């Protein structure tokens, strides 16, 4: 892989590029889906992708290909170099300073070489057991969208013309179930899942299936509620979506374009004191961990929000220069060049037992699912469809649906009155249960 990258960079220079970097990913994936106990789909995949960024002086361009044949790679280089001649020069463009590049590649334990040893039949069986546990949990589980097992192994390599070349491998394994519950002619679907880098650490299929069934069952009999302003408790999965909105607003490109509700808020109190948000790419075995970022800079642990105070943006080299700051090593690669991406992003756990957070609410909403895209990143205006449980005198009383929750993200962050102690990493972004003091719930 590194040889190919070396050739590409050499060729780019020969074609007139003054600097360049290139990223390569190769992966093999397998997935099995079982529905109502029978095999539905089995999928094998093999993919590779090479992306190149070139600089002609201060002008940049990018190209990518999935064809690694000699002619194709030559065409890739030619196209990137000729594209860079039509883009406008930008004084701030370029590779990061060579002095900042990762000097050693930390061992982050992202690979599970023996985890892939299962036969397709054994993998299908994991999916089957997972779905079976959901189907068998209760007679009201009457249908299913399936049980899924998927695994993937990938290798990433990065090289830059000012002297960097490194690669690493990763594994991932996931298992999920999506049962349908029905009662009185009404259906409700929900699901549960687990994703890990080590197969041995996957939750048991039975545990995932049962949780999925419990989630679908608790939605049965859902109804609308009357429009009201009430406290809203976000379950951990939904609280994580709030953390993603914060990350989007503190990403360099959103800031230098003026497209962020957190513009000019560095150093200010943007959230309640109980809110600390961290992005940490160095967690051993973490789903979002990586040894270096998309520009070869070592990954870090970044405190984005410290006790409610916005303490750091998320920057790559270019957006950092635009804002007069240093990169926070959050460059991510896509085919079009470099963007900003998070690693393992989380809201640090608080002291509250989630039961106590719910218990503190007289009338309010416990949100378990959000749908729709009603978030304005520029103003922070927020309005999304919601599903959950109505809280009556501190108890989860009955399921609700066909409602929305609305407010403004900045107001919501400041109105966080409680943070749970139940932080678990199920995905690259995680959060514990969160209580937001007041939002508008729209219903009948």
């Amino acid at each position, binding site marked *: 892989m590194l040889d190919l990258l070396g050739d590409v960079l050499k060729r780019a220079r020969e074609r007139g590029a003054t600097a360049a970097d290139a990223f390569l990913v190769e992966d093999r994936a397998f997935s099995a889906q079982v*529905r109502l106990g*029978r*095999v*539905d*789909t*089995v*999928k*094998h*995949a*093999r*993919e*590779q*992708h090479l992306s190149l960024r070139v600089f002609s002086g201060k002008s940049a361009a*990018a*190209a*990518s290909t*999935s*064809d690694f044949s000699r002619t194709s790679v030559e065409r*890739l280089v030619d*196209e990137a170099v000729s*594209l*860079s001649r039509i*883009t406008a020069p*930008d004084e701030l463009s370029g590779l990061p300073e060579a002095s900042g590049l990762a000097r050693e590649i930390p061992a982050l334990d992202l690979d599970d070489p023996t985890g892939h040893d299962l036969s*397709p039949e054994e993998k299908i069986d994991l999916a089957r057991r997972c779905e079976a546990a959901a189907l068998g949990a209760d007679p009201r589980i009457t249908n299913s*969208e399936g049980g899924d097992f998927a695994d993937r192994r990938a290798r990433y390599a990065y090289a830059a013309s000012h002297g960097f070349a490194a690669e690493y491998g990763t594994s991932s394994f996931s298992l999920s179930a999506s049962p*349908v519950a029905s009662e009185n002619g009404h*259906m*409700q*679907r929900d699901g549960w899942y687990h994703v890990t880098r080590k197969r041995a650490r996957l939750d048991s299929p039975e545990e995932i299936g049962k949780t999925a069934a419990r989630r679908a069952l608790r939605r049965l009999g859902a109804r*609308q509620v009357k429009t009201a*302003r009430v406290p809203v408790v976000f379950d951990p999965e939904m609280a994580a979506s709030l953390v993603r909105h914060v990350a989007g607003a503190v990403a360099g490109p959103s800031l230098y*374009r*003026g*497209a962020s509700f957190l*513009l000019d808020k560095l150093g200010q109190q943007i959230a309640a004191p109980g809110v600390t948000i961290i992005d940490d790419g160095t967690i051993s075995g973490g789903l979002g961990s990586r040894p270096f970022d998309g520009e070869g800079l070592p990954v870090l642990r970044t405190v984005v929000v410290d006790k409610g105070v916005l303490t750091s943006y998320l920057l790559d080299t270019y957006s950092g220069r635009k804002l007069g700051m240093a990169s926070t090593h959050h460059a991510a690669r896509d*085919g079009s*060049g470099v963007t900003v991406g998070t690693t393992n992003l989380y809201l640090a756990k608080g002291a509250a037992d989630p039961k106590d957070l719910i218990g503190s609410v007289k009338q309010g909403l416990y949100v378990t699912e959000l*749908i*729709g*895209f*009603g978030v*304005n*990143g*520029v*103003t922070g*205006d927020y*309005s*999304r*469809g919601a*599903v959950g449980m109505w809280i009556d005198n501190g108890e989860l009383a009955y399921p609700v*649906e*066909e409602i*929305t929750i*609305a407010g*403004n993200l900045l107001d919501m962050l400041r109105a966080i009155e409680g943070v749970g102690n139940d932080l678990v990493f199920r995905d690259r972004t995680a959060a514990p249960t969160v209580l937001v003091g007041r939002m*508008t*719930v*729209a219903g*009948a």
Partner: protein
Amino acid sequence: MTTNKLARPERFFEDRFGLTSSALERLLGSHLAGRVDHADLFLEYRVSEELTLEEGAVKKASRHVSQGAGIRAQSGERTGYAHTDDLALPNLEEAARQARAIADQTSASTAVAIGPGRPHDLYTLAEPPVNAALDRKVALLLKMDAAARALDPRVKQVIASLGSEDVVVLIATPSGWTVGDVRPLTRLNVTVIVEENGKREIGTYGGGGRVPFDFFLEADRGEADRGEADRWRRYTSEAVRQATIKLHAVEAPAGEMTVVLGPGWPGILLHEAVGHGLEGDFNRKQTSAFSGRMGQKVASELVTVIDDGTIANRRGSLNVDDEGIPTRRNVLIEKGVLVGYMQDRLNARLMGGEPTGNGRRESYAHQPMPRMTNTFMLAGQDDPADIIRSVPHGLYAVNFGGGQVDITNGKFVFSASEAYLIEDGKVTRPVKGATLIGSGPEALTRVSRVGHDLKLDEGVGTCGKDGQSVPVGVGLPTIRIDGITVGGTQV
């Protein structure tokens, strides 16, 4: 890459990868023929290009090539799917073996032969948009930037982007039947950020389709009487108009009320409220809120909903779907009665119907499933102005962001990016942050007025399902819905 090569998909894969029709026939015949209910090979070669302007200059330019093959084998309800981006024959053979492995475990039932049908010719272009000269594209983006800033001094940031692609596909089955398609697609988008007294807002607009680059430089045909300027200029002024209106928008009301939807893009309501629920897979699995309701009344009798993949040059149109079936005009709801599902081969076979040209996939790396093409409601009788006058108090929504639906319970959401209060039959103040939430099986039963002004959207829609994105179109005349929940903040 030259245009004429792409115009003939069979020759393209033969010339570039040595995949002759006899080689493909041998590959499919030896590995898949006779063992399965259906098998096919999907070859794809995609070239795409993106140019982005920000801060007054085109600073981002990129070009991407991807290629690959997906091989599928189906027995009963089972699908084996293997895909690879290495198109060498031995590699395709390995993929065929992997796809077949799953189907081997059962014997094939009687396969239903589906004739090739006559493909359309909906978007043959003299020059695909990806091939148009780069300097012309750069010049257009610069003009949009200048036009936006000239329109209003409050414009602080302009981000304009032009994306184009050309995709060659070839679908082959073990019986030796092959069909190809060459699919151009382009989209021009402009986002502006405006600022007034420290308050910022965003507006975004765009359009496109399976059209040449010059499409953006032309005025809309048929709208000349409205004095419409060139498309790129109209997109720009729309983005600025939407952003500046939002600067003074009041908080959206919350609760159930009468809603009037404007023509065109608000057709996303149909896509979310009924379209997904009428896709064959959910109905075969009986996980749709519309399952088992064929022949029943699911909407007001004023409502007829069509999915039509055959409209020339539209973003959602296709000559053949991704299983090689020619697209068609399918009536889904006729005068309020559910009359049709959208089907791919698998679900049609298992449900005893026929494929409807709705088998679509994002790329070779994805297996097909039933998807919408261009989904719209037929025009009615009413004057749009009368419809608004008929509402004492409600919401008039004319532009939307995205939408989403939970198929199983039919609850759908979509977010208005431009909406106004209706007070005493008049459109008054703009509101911000209005999300509409409703129940699919109920929403269209509450349609009480349908305008005569059917319009299709500008050509920017992308639909996500099971992690796969495909381009789609929507359309709607002005309609009145008596009672839908509006999710705002104003109680």
